[in-house]
């Protein structure tokens, strides 16, 4: 039509080409070779400086919990019933209403000072115009520039994964296939890491999981998988989904053996255990990646580990993952957000900054049962990651607590009473 239109088309064409070339050179090629230009590191340092500025300008708050210590008074220590025995239970009950250890693990962690994301704005009032302007600028950068960039990368990463693993699936089983499959998996996961602008620091890589072992880690979000798998090759375990996830799962398993279960098989614990032990016995297969908590927790604590993975006879390689909440909250609150919504939120945060610690391998010791072993591993992970070690079950996110715990408390109290009762009744009989 008009020369103006031609000009527009030309400009668009050129900008797209430039865009993709830059993407290729600075992001995709390094991802393939596992190198880094240090762009993300620089980005992170700049952000940190900005956030420190904001903190100094006074938009911070005190985050001590609003309760109580449980030091006031021991349990009912007198051995005869008194009407004041109820006071102990009252006090504990009210303390747990004011603040408890469990319910707060299922919602995102609160921040000390605002990080310019609306979603983390809990109680921060309007502080100053400067802050609001910064926030506006942040929105523009995040949604206008970072989000499209990350989406492009994510789509590239996932499509390459599906395409290449399917292609590799045609090769005969052998060293070449194994080698290629490793490279492809690593490359695609690295692209995904860049798609999230994830800045990961790996510690103690000498303890990385080896073939025939089981890798266990604390679970905060589905991104944990991407973070671990971009530094090593694992066999994934999980349920087969439909849709895009299912497609990815099916093509991945063509290139190297993963353990996918049908929905019906998941309930069958023996079947699950058998497949896991078969996989582990075969030393040519990759280490299994499992999240024993069974559900996403908000990264301030580690909750009960399900004993299933600890019953299998093999070395366990614990891994602790800790996210830095200042840059973006990685916790997936599945009751609030669906997967797509969650991924979009991830891609429009500043960045995902986390530390991964590979802990020395552990095995079940003589005389230790699966539950004790699981607790030992859990304590090690909690200690390394600076997380609170809880005995509560992550399943409490959705389900009710078992009555056995209440019964234990009742038993304890009864013991205190019954002690004197026996004495009294024998005294009564003799007098």
């Amino acid at each position, binding site marked *: 039509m008009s020369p103006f239109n031609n000009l527009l088309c030309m400009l668009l064409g050129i900008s797209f080409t430039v865009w993709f070339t830059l993407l290729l050179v600075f992001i995709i090629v390094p991802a393939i070779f596992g190198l880094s230009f240090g762009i993300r590191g620089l980005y992170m340092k700049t952000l940190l400086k900005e956030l420190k500025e904001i903190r100094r300008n006074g938009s911070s708050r005190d985050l001590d919990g609003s309760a109580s210590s449980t030091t006031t008074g021991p349990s009912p220590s007198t051995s005869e019933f008194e009407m004041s025995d109820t*006071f102990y239970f*009252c*006090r504990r009950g009210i303390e747990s209403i004011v603040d408890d250890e469990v319910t707060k693990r299922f919602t995102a962690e609160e921040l000390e000072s605002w990080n310019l994301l*609306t979603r983390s704005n809990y109680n921060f009032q309007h502080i100053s115009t400067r802050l609001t302007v910064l926030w506006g600028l942040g929105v523009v950068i995040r949604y206008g520039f970072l989000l499209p960039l990350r989406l492009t990368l994510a789509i590239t990463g996932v499509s390459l994964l599906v395409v290449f693993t399917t292609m590799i699936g045609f090769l005969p089983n052998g060293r070449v296939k194994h080698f290629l499959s490793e490279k492809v998996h690593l490359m695609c996961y690295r692209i995904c890491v860049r798609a999230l602008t994830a800045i990961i620091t790996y510690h103690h890589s000498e303890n990385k999981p080896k073939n025939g072992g089981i890798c266990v880690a604390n679970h905060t979000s589905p991104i944990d998988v991407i973070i671990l798998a971009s530094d090593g090759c694992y066999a994934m375990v999980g349920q087969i989904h439909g849709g895009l996830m299912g497609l990815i799962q099916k093509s991945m398993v063509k290139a190297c053996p993963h353990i996918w279960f049908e929905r019906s098989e998941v309930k069958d614990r023996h079947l699950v255990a058998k497949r896991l032990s078969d996989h582990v016995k075969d030393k040519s297969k990759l280490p299994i990646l499992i999240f024993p908590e069974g559900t996403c927790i908000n990264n301030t604590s580690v909750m009960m580990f399900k004993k299933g993975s600890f019953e299998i006879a093999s070395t366990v390689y614990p891994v602790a993952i800790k996210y830095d909440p200042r840059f973006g909250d990685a916790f997936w609150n599945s009751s609030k957000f669906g997967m797509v919504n969650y991924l979009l939120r991830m891609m429009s945060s500043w960045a995902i900054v986390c530390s991964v610690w590979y802990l020395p391998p552990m095995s079940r010791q003589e005389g230790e049962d699966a539950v004790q072993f699981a607790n030992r591993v859990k304590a090690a992970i909690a200690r390394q990651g600076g997380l609170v070690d809880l005995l509560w079950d992550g399943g409490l996110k959705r389900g009710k607590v078992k009555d056995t715990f*209440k019964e234990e408390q009742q038993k304890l109290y009864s013991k205190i*009473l019954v002690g004197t009762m026996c004495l009294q009744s024998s005294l009564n009989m003799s007098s």
Partner: protein
Amino acid sequence: MGSRASSLLREEDIEEIKKETGFSHSQITRLYSRFHSLDKGENGALSREDFQRIPELAINPLGDRIINAFFPEGEDQANFRGFMRTLAHFRPVEDNEKNKDLTSGEPLNSRTNKLLFAFRLYDLDRDDKISRDELLQVLRMMVGVNISDEQLGSIADRTIQEADTNGDMCISFSEFIKVLEKVDVEQKMSIRFLH
């Protein structure tokens, strides 16, 4: 989006709650955040299920009775005022010296009011008397299945015998106060609220 908890609580409300309960401004806003996080239905009031969702409370033998204390007669929604009023019973007594601007009458966390809270835990039918049955019910809640009916019955009988002064085989509030006069109620029925 993050919870806009504090924006739903107006300054006038905070002042009124301050006068009624003696909590400080920051304590009230913090407890409001907690109230809001417990309120899964986001309707400005807590139901019994909201309380039951706290695992540590659900395994407390007296959990149900404690939860009951938050709900006024016949209602099953607890609003924030009611929530604060009930929690105020557990404020430590020393804190009263700092807050002199309380309105009429006795503060909610006086010794008498703390004892009234504990009394009401037993007195389910609110007839101002703890009958043998009501006492047995609470005992049963605390010991579970571990003590026989006869033993429990004799414990209840002994307790009533020691407390009952007017021979009606029930414990009235004044008899309850008398039995517990040597007990450090102020300490045992208080928890620390951080400022």
